[in-house]
């Protein structure tokens, strides 16, 4: 089969899975829906691998295949087809998305086992993967926008999956609203580009862009920045990031899949996909790099002060995506995508391990309450440490190579980018610190009662499950994690999923060892062959090895700091907190971004809204427009129906009257 056929199959299988699980929700017993959904995903992954090999079979210059299923509207001047673009970039994303999704589905089969909404969960999850695959395979802006919006909708459904939790629905709505803001940016950006190039197709757009736009052309920059707005909203970049920590209200597999491995990297993919445009509009690229850099620092500092286990990982995700956005905006495409791949492995792993801990704590996510799980859950502990080492960037774990490559390649751009790289190194130190803070606080120290209970071989079940966010008594029928929750230690399928990811988190970095291997470089070359940065950015040997050494030192220093602060002298955090009270307040309050957005956007919007409601809506819209229009329509209706009197002769009269009028009008033409 050709690469495109296989890609279509990879797209179709999750959709089929979603439909089959959804339609049969009355018939599926036990875990049937979970197995169906997981099988669909593994099938999709197999197709992705097939597509990969089929694509590699093509000659290098022919590795950009477009396949259209049908024309939706082939009217004059609009080439809206349902088309996909199969090239190394989309295949890479396809492999990551389907592969990680398949493992996370496998994990969720057991993890969600006791949930009443089991079938619903897998239907949503399959739908999400379908949307995500649609997004990465999109061959034109129309399909991209559809996938983009679908992904946002699926994310909303999954965040508010436990819909009886008020906090979960609120978080879902917040995520949806910010995502829609991003959708608007994307649509407007696509419109700007379409106005210039007259096409929706990606390849044609890239071909025509240099002809119609001058470098840094105002319209092109505006279009690219609007695309960036879409990317920032989806990838949780400052200032559109506040939805991501709240999204942790969703079930943990959702956090692992959507809010770590796949959806939030869509922005990175978008920038990489649009690289010919961003290279024509370097201003937009610089904006993207600066925002990415700001995000990675802000998120890393905020993560230092959080106590909610999943939120720490969420901020860490934001921070890591900041690295990726910075890299792809600066032209270090392969480095950014490399980090995307490794990050998908180790972050999904971290979430799964965290999910296991949270299950052992019966839903409590507060790190202050955790401790000493090392002996109770050795497997989870091992996985968490592997993920943590990769995240912190300790050699030879995957994150070490990818993070280093980002910083080394970005530094090559010189100028302002050097400052950005410096910030990147500072944040790398912070990353190591907060990662090991998490590990030390959760797994070391005195075992908490829940850990002891688990050591005895049975899970802790609270008498009154409470919502960790608000403290409300939870409805266990739809609340976390159901009466029969699972930890990784007890379920083979979860162990398989986590073990595979742990292995990948260790060896993933070997794809691109500086000056030794360059598998990703070679693979992605056809996509970026026309890029001006692809060949030009290549750090010298000296810079490479200095960077590697510095990165390793920083990671180790960070871990050492964490050990000193949280293990050696447990009193230190309080002292530090005392001394750095303002900074601590800044971090613990997440840089007051929610409040900032509150004052800058929400409150004026609300004020405007209430003004609009009272003055505009009530007086003008309701009174004049709606009232007037509906009044006219109603009066017209009454008149027309009164004329429909049933009198035959009246009908004939109107008929003849109309005839005379028309005849007179025609005769006046003469």
């Amino acid at each position, binding site marked *: 089969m050709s690469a495109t056929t296989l890609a279509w199959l990879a797209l179709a299988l999750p959709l089929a899975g979603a439909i089959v699980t959804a339609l049969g929700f009355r018939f599926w017993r036990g875990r049937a829906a979970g197995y169906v959904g997981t099988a669909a995903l593994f099938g999709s992954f197999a197709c992705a691998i097939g597509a990969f090999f089929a694509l590699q079979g093509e000659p290098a210059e022919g590795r950009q295949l477009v396949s259209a299923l049908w024309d939706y509207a082939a009217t004059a001047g609009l080439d809206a087809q349902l088309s996909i673009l199969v090239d190394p970039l989309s295949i890479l994303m396809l492999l990551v998305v389907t592969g990680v999704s398949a493992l996370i589905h496998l994990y969720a089969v057991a993890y969600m086992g006791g949930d009443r909404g089991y079938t619903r969960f897998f239907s949503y999850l399959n739908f999400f993967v379908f949307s995500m695959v649609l997004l990465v395979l999109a061959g034109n802006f129309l399909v991209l926008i559809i996938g983009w919006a679908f992904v946002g909708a699926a994310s909303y459904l999954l965040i508010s999956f436990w819909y009886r939790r008020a906090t979960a629905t609120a978080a879902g709505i917040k995520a949806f609203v910010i995502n829609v803001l991003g959708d608007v940016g994307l649509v407007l950006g696509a419109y700007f580009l379409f106005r210039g190039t007259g096409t929706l197709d990606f390849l044609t757009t890239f071909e025509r862009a240099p002809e119609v736009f001058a470098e840094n052309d105002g319209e092109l920059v505006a279009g690219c920045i609007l695309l960036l707005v879409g990317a920032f909203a989806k990838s949780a970049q400052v200032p559109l990031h506040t939805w991501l920590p709240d999204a942790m209200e969703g079930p943990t597999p959702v956090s692992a899949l959507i809010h770590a491995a796949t959806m939030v990297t869509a922005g990175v993919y978008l920038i990489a996909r649009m690289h010919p445009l961003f290279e024509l509009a370097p201003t937009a690229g610089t904006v993207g790099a600066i925002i990415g850099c700001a995000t990675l620092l802000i998120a890393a500092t905020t993560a230092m002060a959080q106590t909610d286990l999943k939120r720490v990982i969420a901020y860490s995700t934001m921070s890591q995506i900041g690295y990726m956005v910075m890299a792809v905006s600066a032209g270090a495409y392969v480095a950014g995508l490399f980090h995307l791949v490794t990050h998908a492995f180790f972050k999904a792993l971290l979430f799964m391990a965290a999910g296991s801990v949270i299950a052992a704590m019966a839903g409590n996510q507060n790190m202050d309450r955790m401790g000493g799980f090392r002996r109770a859950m050795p497997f989870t502990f091992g996985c968490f440490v592997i993920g943590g080492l990769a995240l912190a960037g300790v050699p030879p774990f995957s994150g070490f190579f990818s993070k280093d490559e980002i910083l080394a390649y970005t530094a090559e751009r010189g100028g302002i980018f050097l400052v950005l790289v410096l910030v990147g190194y500072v944040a790398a130190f912070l990353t190591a610190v907060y990662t090991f803070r998490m590990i030390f606080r959760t797994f070391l120290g005195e075992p908490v009662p829940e850990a002891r209970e688990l050591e005895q071989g049975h899970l802790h079940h609270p008498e009154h499950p409470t919502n960790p966010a608000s403290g409300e008594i939870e409805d266990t029928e739809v609340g976390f994690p159901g009466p029969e929750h699972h930890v990784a230690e007890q379920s083979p399928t979860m162990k398989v999923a986590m073990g595979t990811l742990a292995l990948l988190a260790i060896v993933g970095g070997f794809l691109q060892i500086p000056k030794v291997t360059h598998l990703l470089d070679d693979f992605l070359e056809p996509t970026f062959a026309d890029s001006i940065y692809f060949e030009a950015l290549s750090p010298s040997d000296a810079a490479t090895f200095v960077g590697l050494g510095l990165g390793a030192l920083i990671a180790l220093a960070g871990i050492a700091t964490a050990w000193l602060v949280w293990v050696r002298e447990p009193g230190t955090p309080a002292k530090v907190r005392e001394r750095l009270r303002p900074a601590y307040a800044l971090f613990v309050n997440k840089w007051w971004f929610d409040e900032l957005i509150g004052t800058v956007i929400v409150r004026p919007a609300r004020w405007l809204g209430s003004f609009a409601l009272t003055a505009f809506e009530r007086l003008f819209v309701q009174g004049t427009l709606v009232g007037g229009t509906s009044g006219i329509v109603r009066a017209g209706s009454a008149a027309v*129906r009164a004329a*429909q*009197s*049933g*009198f*035959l*002769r009246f009908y*004939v*009269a109107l008929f*003849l009257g109309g005839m005379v009028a028309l005849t007179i009008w025609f005769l006046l033409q003469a």
Partner: protein
Amino acid sequence: MAIEWYLALSALIFVIGAGGVLTRRNPLVLLLCVELMLNAGNLALVAFNRMHGGGDGQIFALMVMVVAACEVVIGLGIIVALYRRHLPIDVDEMRELQG
């Protein structure tokens, strides 16, 4: 005679027919008036045929006559059906369908 006179006559007949449809309430008379209107058309057709030569207009007029006969037959049939059902033979009474 000039064509104008024929046309004037046919227009007059057409208007008489239309007036009859508007003023009469008996469906039978309505059908007669419709016949007048159709035959006004026939008159015009034949007159124009005379003016242009050829046979098209006359053939057209013959067709119209056949059609008019068909319409009257159906009208009569419906009137008979109304009569058998003891419904009023008056178009102003037929107002069940309205609004």
